[in-house]
């Protein structure tokens, strides 16, 4: 295993042996070491769940907030100090279930953050209930007769919302994953990377082998600038395409459009209240 500045050997990892999260952790640290070489400028943000524990195992700043609520603080951190690189890591339940509303609106907002969703198609931390991405028929102690809901399609939703970067990887394909992740973090704007991640304990359906068999790589015939084509790829479910589905650079970035940064790029922590303007307003109230 390559040693990176983000390694944190003291961390007491609470994932099950064989869990797909380990692979994600390894290549994420590699990628971060390359694209975010100053740990002082990187903040990991997560919600709650097994996936959301990832920041605990990285030597770096993190904000490990509430279940489903990673995106609002991630957006605010980026906006409060735009010089920071903000990467979100959370589970599919966290991001697409509890946090679904934030998922939609953060895409609309388009802050320059990267969102990595560990999609294991199950609730790990709470011991195996269905997640929004669980397949129809998937049996759990709660969905005892199998899931009867249509699975949530995060990529199709993101493309429908004209997200600025939409990709899917399978953590079992390390090189491909690293390549896509790197591009996601370097992309300016909201980047979604949905990661197929086997949960060896609670998901006996979507296994390493299943993901290998049920996926294929998008090749050069796919044009990531073509939104309609990207959407078409996103709704393929016989075999799931992997790679960058959609990327566009025209969409204005949230923090760049805020009037608070129009004339003044100072991060918020270095700002002082403009008391002269307060006086000017009070003066107006006297008229």
């Amino acid at each position, binding site marked *: 295993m390559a040693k990176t500045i983000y390694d944190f050997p003291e961390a007491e990892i609470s994932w099950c042996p064989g869990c797909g999260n380990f692979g994600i952790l390894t290549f994420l640290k590699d990628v971060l070491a390359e694209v975010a070489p100053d740990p002082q400028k990187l903040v990991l*943000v997560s919600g709650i769940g097994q996936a959301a524990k990832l920041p605990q195992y990285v030597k770096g700043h993190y*904000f*490990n907030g509430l279940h489903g609520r990673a995106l609002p*603080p991630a957006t605010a951190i980026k906006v409060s100090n735009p010089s920071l690189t903000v990467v979100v890591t959370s589970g599919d339940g966290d991001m697409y279930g509890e946090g679904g509303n934030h998922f939609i609106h953060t895409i609309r907002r388009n802050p320059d953050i990267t969102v990595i969703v560990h999609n294991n198609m199950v609730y790990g931390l709470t011991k195996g209930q269905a997640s929004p991405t669980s397949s129809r028929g998937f049996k759990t102690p709660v969905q005892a007769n199998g899931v009867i809901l249509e699975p949530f399609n995060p990529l199709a939703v993101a493309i429908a919302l004209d997200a600025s970067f939409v990709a899917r990887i399978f953590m079992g394909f390390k090189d491909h994953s690293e390549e896509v992740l790197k591009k996601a973090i370097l992309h300016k704007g909201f980047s979604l990377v949905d990661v197929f991640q086997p949960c060896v304990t609670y998901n006996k359906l979507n296994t390493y082998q299943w993901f290998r068999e049920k996926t294929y790589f998008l090749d050069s015939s796919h044009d990531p600038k073509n939104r309609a084509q990207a959407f078409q790829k996103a709704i393929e479910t016989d075999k799931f395409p992997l790679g960058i589905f959609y990327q566009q650079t025209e969409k204005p970035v949230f923090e760049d459009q805020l009037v608070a940064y129009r004339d003044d790029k100072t991060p918020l*922590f270095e700002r*002082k*209240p*403009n008391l002269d303007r307060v006086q000017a307003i*009070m003066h107006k109230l006297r008229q």
Partner: protein
Amino acid sequence: MSSQRTFQHDISVVLAGEAGQGIATVEQVFMRTLKTAGYHVSATKEYMSRVRGGTNTTEIRVASRPIAAFVDRIDLLVELNPKAVDHVKNRLSSSTIIIADENSVKDLPQLVLTVPFARIAQELGDRILSNTIALGFLAALFDIPSQELIDQVRRSFGKKEGDIIEKNCSAAQQGFDLGRQAAFKHQLSVQIERNPSVKKEMIVGGHEAAALGAVVGGCNFLASYPMSPSTGVLTFLAQHADEFGIVVEQAEDEIAAMNMGLGSWYAGGRAMVTTSGGGFSLMTEGLSLAGAIESPMVIYLAQRPGPATGLPTRTEQGDLDLALYAGHGDFPRAIFTPGTLKDIFLLTAMAFDLADLYQVPVFILTDQGLLDLYHTLSEFPAVTVKASNHIVKTTPDYKRYKFTDSGLSPRGIPGFGEGIVCVDSDEHDEGGYITEDSQTRKAMVDKRMKKHGLLLKDVLAPQFFGEKDYKKLILGWGSSFHAIREAMEQQSDLDTAFLYFRQVYPFPDMAIPLIEKAKEVVCVENNASGQFAKLLRRETGLAVHKKILKYDGSPFSVEELVRQI
């Protein structure tokens, strides 16, 4: 009918009309006109939760001294829609003078001055001008030179296009002439002493007071979801975001707003969320997160009557329990309850420093009644607290939750210094990493709860009004302030004193001997269960003898307090 009437000291003018008839405009222009003439003025509104129709009223009080309370009494009623008289019938007396359109004349015992509002407005080509005619009529009764009135109208409508300004000036002038005639015919005169220094005063409203207080406190991040009556602050700061360098975002919901606020504080921002009870209910998990990660947070909670959607545009002090108990688990908090516009400004500014200093959530609890109050004011109080961050530059060995004697761990932020800043909603160790170690858990709880003691040390003492040897003590918090003060002035009973709480939590324990000393303790609250009285009992074991409660959606009036105290 001719009836001679002279108004001295204090007059209450009520404008009543449908939503969309422009009462708010008359209110603002009339207030400015009166102020320029040297009168102290205040205005309070009550309005329906609808954009058109219904009946809304504004009460404008004009006096020779600063006034701000709501009175039931109506001296002059301007009726812009025919239903208005009915809407306020309980507040009319035989001496109320009603100014109404010529076509809506009713058989009333009061003196009715009819004005052809509709006809003149029609002649000028726009129904909406009735409000400006009324403005002119009123200005004449107050003996304002017509030129001053016209100047104000020009200033107020100056941004409008086309002939709108001229039409309004003409409407004001015609109203003025009719007002002059009516005053002469009925021998009406206003003889309220004027004070030239009022001319230079501000006209301030609750929303502005809070927003400016926030700026002075160093607010530079606001995430909110619109909800009456909190939206005024959001709007004000959004409109001034650029000059004050404030990040303002309308979040997708209150959950997002609160969690954004916490993210901002984490990254070095000074954040506030503005909301009302329903929205705050959605924020409560985030409030608990503030407790866990020891984040500062400023929560501007503007109350309206609940439960649920309740009465969206009306007033109540019904969310004290909510602010007090919201959020699961034990963690400290502070609750400010300003009762005046000065205090809204001051306490909102102070909330940022207090939150930042002790890394706790701080509430500013206001309500519709107080926020929709406008009045003349010479100065805002001076704010002496620090408006910059209490953050430290981190060192490589930095630990966000380092145990210290005081319980306060110096707060670092990412990207400032060489340390790593980790915050976690799970129970955590000094470094911010998840732990289930029972000793660490207990030590962390103790550390967090120590801050309650620090907050108590800095608590704002209640303000006492009265003589030393009182027998009866009135307890009030927040928006009941002006009505209680004015009711007491009217009674001038030396045995009665008033204790005004600007901070209710942590409970200011210097109040205990003052309460114990009274033979009778009366608590005045705009809610149904006496939430402050319950808090008092829980924190001190002291019971009140009598509760004066009101929960019909309107604020206390001076008259009803005079009757009940």
